[in-house]
């Protein structure tokens, strides 16, 4: 086989595995974020007891304890369920929730030793449509779980959920159409490339990045709300209205099968955050520094990366140090030392970043290093955007109460659908005037 082809194949295989691992790695972090976020919004402290040898990672070890607990539980299959579909549903939910990330690019392609390394598992020509079609298949998992459980509460929960997902898919798809009219392409890599430029309106360049959120503000809002509804997240989590439906579609599930549903829910949100960030917030593009500019100026990527690291890690270090001082009187030993250890690590990263920047600016980095720094910087940028949306999911959940079912349907059909259509009309007219 042609060595170039082999290289591409290896590249695709590695990226595919990575794209499955990334959301899975995000899930425990997301659960931790949800617990701590909800606690802090409600003036509580959140998980801070579970630890391994005294290391508590600010409550993140709680997730390991939960996983151990869920795996140890009895795997109950009730007597009158439809066994095949009952077993299939959680796997379906989990698989489908991980798939859309395959077309999301993590960074611009890297030219290295004659090969082009792409940070995207599949650059499909139907990119955005692939995401839409896969997310609409997510409803099958819920319907299968609700129907095969042979339980009225489960069935009602899954019915609600499927009705909601189908209603909100319309406005989701329509808000995406406006975006595609602006970008003139459905390929994800092209969409992200386009967002690296500056915004131009009627021939004038504006001091704004060419992001979807500025081109389609209404579309962004609609897509965001629809994404909340699609992921069955508060305020749209009617499928598991505890007061009416006990737990909704996953009522009869226990042990690992429940944890699969639970993880699928969070993986869905991670993927939704990636998709929103890619479509509307420029994906991996660093604002005001497009890939071409980064490649042209070898020091720009270095300075940006080091400055971001210094800022983030410096703030985190100060925060850890302050937390350590505040809790010093409470604990002894490892528990007392842990925040200071993290602060030390953060400050070490700050020092290393400053040193690297100083070395790069005075002595100059070797030729290949700048090329590697660009994907790292872009990945960091994408992750920051994704983290913001992860936090938004948590923030909104612990702020808003659940919608009533009629309010939900009214909003989906009578407000969001007309707004999406109107958005399309306005976008079309504006695009015509631009020509």
């Amino acid at each position: 086989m042609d060595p170039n082809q082999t290289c591409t194949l290896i590249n695709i295989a590695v990226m595919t595995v990575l794209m499955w691992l990334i959301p899975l790695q995000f899930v425990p972090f997301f659960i931790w974020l949800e617990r701590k976020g909800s606690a802090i919004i409600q003036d509580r402290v959140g998980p801070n007891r579970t630890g391994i040898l005294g290391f508590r990672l600010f409550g993140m070890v709680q997730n390991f304890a939960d996983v151990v607990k869920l795996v140890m539980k009895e795997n109950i299959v009730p007597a009158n369920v439809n066994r095949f579909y009952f077993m299939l549903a959680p796997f379906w939910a989990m698989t489908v929730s991980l798939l859309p990330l395959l077309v999301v690019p993590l960074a611009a392609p890297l030219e290295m030793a004659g090969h082009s390394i792409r940070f995207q598992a599949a650059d499909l020509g139907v990119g955005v449509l692939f995401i839409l079609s896969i997310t609409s298949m997510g409803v099958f998992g819920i319907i299968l779980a609700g129907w095969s459980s042979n339980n009225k509460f489960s069935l009602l929960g899954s019915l609600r959920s499927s009705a909601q997902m189908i209603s909100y898919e319309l406005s989701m798809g329509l808000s995406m159409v406006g975006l595609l009219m602006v970008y003139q392409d459905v390929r994800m890599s092209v969409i992200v490339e386009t967002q690296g430029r500056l915004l131009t309106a009627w021939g004038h360049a504006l001091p704004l990045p060419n992001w979807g959120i500025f081109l389609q503000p209404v579309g962004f809002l609609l897509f965001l709300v629809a994404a909340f509804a699609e992921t069955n997240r508060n305020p749209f989590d009617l499928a598991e209205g505890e007061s009416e439906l006990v737990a909704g579609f996953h009522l009869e599930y226990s042990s690992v099968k429940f944890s699969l549903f639970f993880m699928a829910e969070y993986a869905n949100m991670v993927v939704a955050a990636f998709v929103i960030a890619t479509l509307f917030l420029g994906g991996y593009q660093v604002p005001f520094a497009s890939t071409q500019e980064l490649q042209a100026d070898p020091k720009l990527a270095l300075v940006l990366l080091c400055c971001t690291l210094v800022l983030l890690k410096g703030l985190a270090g100060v925060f850890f140090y302050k937390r350590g001082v505040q809790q010093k009187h409470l604990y002894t030993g490892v528990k007392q030392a842990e925040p200071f250890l993290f602060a030390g690590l953060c400050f070490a990263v700050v020092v290393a970043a400053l040193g690297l920047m100083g070395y790069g600016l005075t002595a100059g980095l070797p030729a290949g290093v700048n090329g590697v720094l660009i994907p790292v910087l872009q990945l960091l940028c994408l992750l920051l955007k994704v983290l913001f949306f992860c936090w938004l999911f948590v923030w909104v959940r612990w702020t808003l109460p659940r919608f009533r079912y009629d309010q939900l349907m009214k909003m989906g059909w009578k407000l969001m659908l007309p707004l999406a259509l109107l958005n399309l009309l306005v976008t079309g007219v504006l695009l015509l005037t631009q020509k």
Partner: protein
Amino acid sequence: MKVVQRPGNKGPFKTYVVAVLKGLWLTMGHVVSNLFHPEKLPTVFFPEEKKALPPATRGRHRLMKREDGSPRCTACMLCATACPAECIHILAEESPNPDIEKLPAKFDIDMLRCVYCGFCVDACPLDAIRMDIPEVTVAGYTRDSLVYHKEFLMDHDNKDVVPDYNPPRPVLWTHGPHANP
């Protein structure tokens, strides 16, 4: 018939946007203040940090002692009789002191049954039992470890007591062997 319009019902054009933003602003305020001033949180980190108990807290029982170290209790069984949970088990024996008739050979309190009503303290004519040791975590790995014996109940020389513990104390004897201190 009068039709009452619900306030603020704007039909399908209700967008919730302003209300949602207001709510998000409110919760973000909590996040910021709690993130940077965790000391203002009402949470007490319990095992490491203990709250001062209010005065007259009804804590764990203790058996008071005479000056010579013998129990003040005379095994009169009034506390065991008053106890609604029947958690006090007393076995009397003859006292070596000719002025005192009986002593408790065994004085067991079954903490698994005790309901902390304090009737035993009220019933005692000698102020021999008090509930003023500020232990609110009565816990053990076995049932037997939660039956407190006389020796354990009398071992309180170095223990803190609730400072302002002030149960109604009957003053029946002002002098003699049973005199209240």
